């Protein structure tokens, strides 16, 4: 029979060891997925990706129309989602910091933040696509904007709440009206944080696939207008990866590689900005 002290030490060592093992397992998956993306993605890279359209089955081609479509839809989402999100965040931080209304909206916003994106796609389908009768890039942009919204609302709310009270009071003491205090003083002071929120949101929507299946769908050809179906990288990856053709698989890996690198770069940048901003407060 072991002594009490020894047993406690053994239990401690075992649990510390298990928690290190868990961390190693978590990092192992990250490493494995990143290595796979690098291995298949780097091999499939070529300049054709940016100069040619998505090909018919079995032939060579690029992803130009898909990159363009994704860019257009993310742009629509930013233009729609940012002002609404910043205003809603302002409403929470400046008008409803401690109220019941504020608590309810924060609660709902946090739920929206984790709500399945496929459901947002279905919502926009019901709301818009079914009415206009065909798939459309606008629908994709709106769906992505709805997914962006809660991220921006939350960061704006947090960033405005972090600002020192002196700043607000000094501005009010000068007799400046509230809307000017918010737009000229507070937004300027919190701009780095709000921008971080937008970047995080863009990182989140850049790889979103499910909501686009019901809204923008896909388009094999070049289309500059978001009024009709619009090609986009995630859906192209999905359709090409599910296909039996090797040349399509290769394009899917190239697209996956570029999207992953883009998203990770955005995530790392925004995290660095956020850490810097919080230290600066």
């Amino acid at each position, binding site marked *: 029979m072991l002594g009490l002290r020894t047993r406690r*030490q053994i239990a*401690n060592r075992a*649990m*510390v060891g298990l*928690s*290190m093992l*868990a*961390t190693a397992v*978590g*990092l192992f998956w990250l490493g*494995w*997925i990143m290595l796979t*993306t690098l291995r298949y993605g780097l091999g499939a890279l070529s300049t054709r990706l940016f100069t040619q359209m998505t090909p018919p089955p079995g032939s060579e081609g690029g992803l130009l129309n898909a990159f363009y479509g994704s860019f257009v839809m993310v742009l629509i989402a930013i233009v729609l989602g940012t002002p*609404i*999100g910043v205003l809603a965040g302002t*409403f*929470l931080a400046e*008008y409803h910091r401690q109220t019941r*209304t504020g608590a309810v*909206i924060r609660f*709902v*916003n946090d*739920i929206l933040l*984790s*709500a*399945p*994106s*496929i*459901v*947002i796609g*279905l*919502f926009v389908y*019901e709301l818009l696509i*079914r009415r206009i009768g065909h798939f459309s890039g606008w629908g994709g942009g709106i769906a992505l904007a*709805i997914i962006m919204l*809660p991220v921006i609302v*939350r960061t704006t709310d947090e960033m405005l709440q972090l600002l020192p009270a*002196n700043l*607000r*009071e000094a501005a*009010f*003491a000068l*007799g*400046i*009206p509230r*809307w000017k205090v*918010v737009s000229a003083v507070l937004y300027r002071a919190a701009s780095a944080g709000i921008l971080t929120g937008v970047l995080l949101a863009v*990182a989140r929507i850049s*790889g979103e*696939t*499910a909501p686009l*299946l019901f809204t923008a*769908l896909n388009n094999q050809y070049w289309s500059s207008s978001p009024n009709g179906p619009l090609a986009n990288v*995630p859906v192209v990856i999905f359709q090409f*990866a599910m296909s039996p053709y090797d040349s399509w698989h290769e394009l899917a890996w190239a697209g*996956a590689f570029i*999207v992953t690198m883009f*998203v*990770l770069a955005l995530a*790392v940048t925004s995290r660095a900005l956020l850490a810097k901003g919080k230290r600066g407060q």
Partner: protein
Amino acid sequence: MSETANADAPPGPRHGPAPAPPRPRRRRSSDTAADGLFHVLAAGAGYLVLGILLAAALSMLWGGRKAFATFGLHFFTSTQWDAVAQKFGAVVPIYGTVVSSTIAIIIAVPISLGIAIFLTEIAPRWLRVPVGTAIELLAAIPSIIYGMWGLFVFVPFMATYIQPWLIAHLGPLPAFGALFRGAPIGIGMLTAGIILAIMIIPFITAVMRDVFLAVPNGLKDGCIAMGSTTWEVIRHVVLPYTRSAVIGAIFLGLGRALGETMAVTFVLGNTHDLKLSLLEPGNSIAATLANEFTEADSDMYLSSLIALGFVLFLVTLVTLAIAKLLLLTVDQRKLQRR
């Protein structure tokens, strides 16, 4: 400079007496209007957030009304999903969603707990930020990448190494063994559950880490001063103090797993047969939607799919609401909320 002005002043704008009457009065009325307009705009945006949630739920209930009206409760008891006969029952997708999410939670919770403990109590300070960031990057990777990795790398790995072993060693067992029978084809519930687990680990870990950091140092120091080991501090101070928030973190992960689409669509197999074995292909609500939506050629088919979406939305909303309520129990102001 401004400190003297607001020592006891209530927060909010103060319209002090104006020294030169005509101009300030004009300015003030236009400012009041602008302030009012700004408030209305902000309020509109704020309530829009509430409106979106409500509108999303209602629009899907509306879109699925035909299926709900035709099949009634039968929609939730029938395993038949037949586009030709126009008969749709949701049992198979619902079962797949529940089973794959359950597998994900069983795998992800202990690993997340371990990582969160490592990041807050064990790791040396210099290691905490890089490891924490690396785990958070797992959450940034788009789910379609998990799907592709799953299909091209993980499915062959499961088919070659893991599944033959499971079939040989667990398959012959009575009762329990029925979960592990069939051919080692790689795809199926188990593979989907494992990939879902990898995807939700960063979410659960981040919340757990934040609530562990909210435990007052005094409590932990007291425990250490009594001669406790690290594990005893975690077991008797940290975990009891954060219990409800830890359960909240698990529900948050569950909410994510239930609605995850692209990662599982690649590896589930998209069949509408109800199979007990975790190694057989199956389906989930989200995967059914992603696979079949563009093929839905009749009103009833489309309505049934949207009805499925409504069920998914309702279930995730309830799960996430439970998660948020549990998380509210730990003082939110101390947390760096994600």
